[in-house]
């Protein structure tokens, strides 16, 4: 086998002429910094640089949404954004959804309503759902289907994903209601949540 080694370059060929740029961003509430090539995609910085591998890359063309993260609260496809574009911005990935002690209601909803099978689309799907519920706490089925139409799932047929998001909306509404009762908060959102809960029942 010794002749084979002629075909192998010894290690240590790194190219110090490649330019790098410093990026600083907030990921899941934590300040992170990295020196990156300008061409590095945000998804790859998250996955390989920060080892946040819950952000999946599926299609490379912004169609499947497996790489969806929230960028200053807005869902974006991190496989078609450069890491340098995130400099100075806030990114939320699936790893930032749950607190140390409890799951986000969307995560609970996906489990309870069997909103996932292989799990590969799930992080992106849940973040797209979070962006929706942050904007619209009481979405209709059509509004949910439209909001998730940038995220592909090959396993579930979406029906249980829709139910999962409704489950989460109801729970978030109930949480808001009890918070509202505690500190006499916004009445209208509590009413909306109650109406939604009634509709579900």
């Amino acid at each position, binding site marked *: 086998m010794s002749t084979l080694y002629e*075909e192998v370059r010894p290690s240590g060929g*790194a190219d110090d002429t490649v330019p790098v740029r410093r990026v600083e961003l907030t990921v899941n509430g934590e300040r992170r910094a990295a020196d990156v090539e300008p061409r590095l995609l945000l998804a790859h910085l998250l996955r390989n640089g920060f080892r946040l591998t819950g952000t999946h890359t599926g299609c490379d063309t912004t169609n499947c949404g497996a790489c969806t993260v929230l960028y200053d609260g807005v869902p974006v496809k991190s496989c078609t954004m450069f890491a340098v574009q995130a400099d100075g911005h806030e990114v939320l990935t699936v790893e930032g959804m749950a607190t140390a002690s409890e799951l986000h209601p969307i995560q609970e909803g996906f489990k309870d309503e069997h909103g996932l099978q*292989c*799990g590969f689309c799930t992080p992106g799907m849940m973040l797209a759902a979070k962006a929706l519920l942050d904007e619209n706490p009481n979405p209709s089925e059509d509004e949910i289907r439209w909001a998730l*139409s940038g995220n592909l799932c*090959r396993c579930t047929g979406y029906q249980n994903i829709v139910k999962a998001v409704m489950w989460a909306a109801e729970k978030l509404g109930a949480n808001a209601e009890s918070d509202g009762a505690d500190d006499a908060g916004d009445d209208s959102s509590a009413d909306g949540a109650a109406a939604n809960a009634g509709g579900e029942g």
Partner: protein
Amino acid sequence: MALDEIKIGGLGASRRRVEDNRFIRGKGNYIDDIALPGMLHMEILRSPLAHARIRSIDVSAAWAIPGVRMVLTGDMLAARNLAWMPTLSYDTQAVLATDKVRFQGQEVACVVADDPYIAKDGCEAIVVDYEPLPPIVNPIQATAPGAPLIRDDKTGQDSNVVFDWEVGDREGTDRAFAEADVVSTIEMHYPRSHPSPIEACGSIADFNRATSKLTVYMTTQAPHIIRAAVALVAELPEHMIRIVSPDLGGGFGNKVPVYPGYVVSILASILLECPVKWIEDKSGNLISTGFGRDIYLKGEMALRNDGRILGVRMHTDSDHGAFFSDAQPSKFKIGLMHSAFSCYDIGAAYLTAQGVYTNKAPGGVAYRCSFRVTEAMFFQERMVQAAATDLGMDQAEFRRVNLVRDDDFPHRTPWGLLTDSGQYGKCLDLGLEAIGYEDFLRQKEEARQRGRLLGIGISTMTEPLGAGNSREYDILGIKMFDSAELKVHMTGKALLRTGAKTQGQGHETTWAQIVAHELGIPAEDVLVEEGDTDTAPFGMGTYASRSTPVAGAAVSMVSRKIRAKARKIAAYLLEVSEEDIDWELGRFSVRGAPDRGVTIQECAIAAYSNMPDGMEPGLENNAYYDPPNLTWPFACYIATVEVDPETGVWDVLRVVAVDDCGVRINPMIVEGQIMGGLTEAYAMANMQFITFDEDGNCIGSNYMDYLLPTAWETPGFELHEVVTPCPHHPIGAKGIGECATVGGPAAFVNAVIDAIGDTGVRNIDMPLLPDRVYEALTGGHDVSGAPPVTTE
């Protein structure tokens, strides 16, 4: 007091899934999530042409890029006898092209580098000089006189025909046609489609020269078959190969075959003595890995005026691409196409099939399907609708007249398969009632008066799931059994491993439920592991809906072995003879004195601490299960649609599904499988196909061109169930994972054809794109979706 089986997560419990705990946190462990120390990255350079001779490959510019560690070409592989590998269908496939490229996307060279970006740079720097050859993109071109020979690498291959195959009773079928009052004929094309799990394929090969052990993390639905294949291809000793299939981001049949990327990453790791990772991109996956379907039908039915089917003739022409790498039982060249018409009581049937090579990607995998069953049932139900129309009979009534009756089981199908159970008429009636059949027909007529086009489509079918038995089903000679190993620990907790491999079906949840049912150990006390060939018992993997029928049965059988041993321990502990022991879920007791008993957990600790004299210690066992027959679920799918006569766009109004998959282990998961399957059925009927232009360019090489349904288009589904237990499966279960994908497409297509029935149109090929429907509507003629044919 017996345990409540539902409470302990046993049979019938819609237990929430164990695997979800990691997936919802983004803590799954998919292939690309694995990083090994010192790992390098590999990228594949693919052919831009469908058919071309390789004049030269210049890799010098790739070598000049800092960070490139290795460039591999076909010649390098040929020097090690690795340029070609065997397929799962006794053919050969190029690993890296040496002489010619035979399809667009074929693997030509690989670059290994410090990071994946540099590896891609390396691929772009390689210069290949091609001499273009005429491409062949369909069976008509492939068999035309003077057609260029695609497989000139194979001695004795003097045409582009892969096989000619037949099954059935030719003369008996001829007689049936001679006696027929009406002969109904139809021709159609089931287009090429790609299973397209969201996660593409990949591998990380890690060869350790010090120990000579090769570990390969790989996206595979069948890790043990891969281990055997690697042993044969790479000539490595099998006990020094470990295949680990991590979490899979979907499979659908796409992750059954052996792909060149796996093989080259292994060679690169051996040469470089470090881990080498290959992660396929989406285009690579769509243009080079196992497709499904791509098959043409000529169908004929011999009918009597009273509606009875006397005989069926089918001829199929299938397009296998450049290498025959279908993944299917070896003796059936066109899979289980001959399972068509299994649910109908027909006199005689005869099937001929020809397969050809073309300059397209190889595959022919069972895309959410038991080996061409999807095509078989689609052809069947389209032929049935055409026959009902030709007889002027109601499509539901025509089915009712011909369906096998409940008291006719076991029933030998005309092509020799044996169906064993079902309540076909009940399922059909339930479906018709759920959709409101008579009401809909009235609405349809009223709508027609006002120029609106409503239609209803029915699809009824039984399909053979769960290969083997081993007498008839093998892949490359390996019999299609499966396995389970159960280790009950001292404290009554347990570890279960099987030879199957989950990829979303929820084995980690449902296998534990079978153990709970058999032993009364709560499901949450049973850890399920699969996919590591160093630890899992040998099995044939998960595809063709075979997990529950085969591996699931093995889980039952190994649990029963454990229970039999525990019974002996119980008799010893209770100081009675074994014959005087009764079993209720989770507990043995003394017959006639039910208060005197021991739990399965008490037996477990005794197995390690207080066993009877002469008994082997421990409470561990395994089972290898060879099913006596396939399982035969039945389904009735009904769709209603409205077609817009101005545009040809059709909308789904309702979808009703009645599935009889026998006993349901976890109803929630079963329903999830059905809804997923219905979505793929809708996708194939409506949008999802891969085609090729005359030059062999793949149209559908990314998700902008290969349309998959989103939440927005996908209709809602109404599910119903009938339960006819499988007579030979230990818990009465049948396969379910693919029923809706198999039976569903015909319901949608039949509905659209029904809606435009006044035009006399008999067929529009899938997908029923608006322009095709519009052309049929306005032209009043059938619309073929077959690719362009030029034969000069």
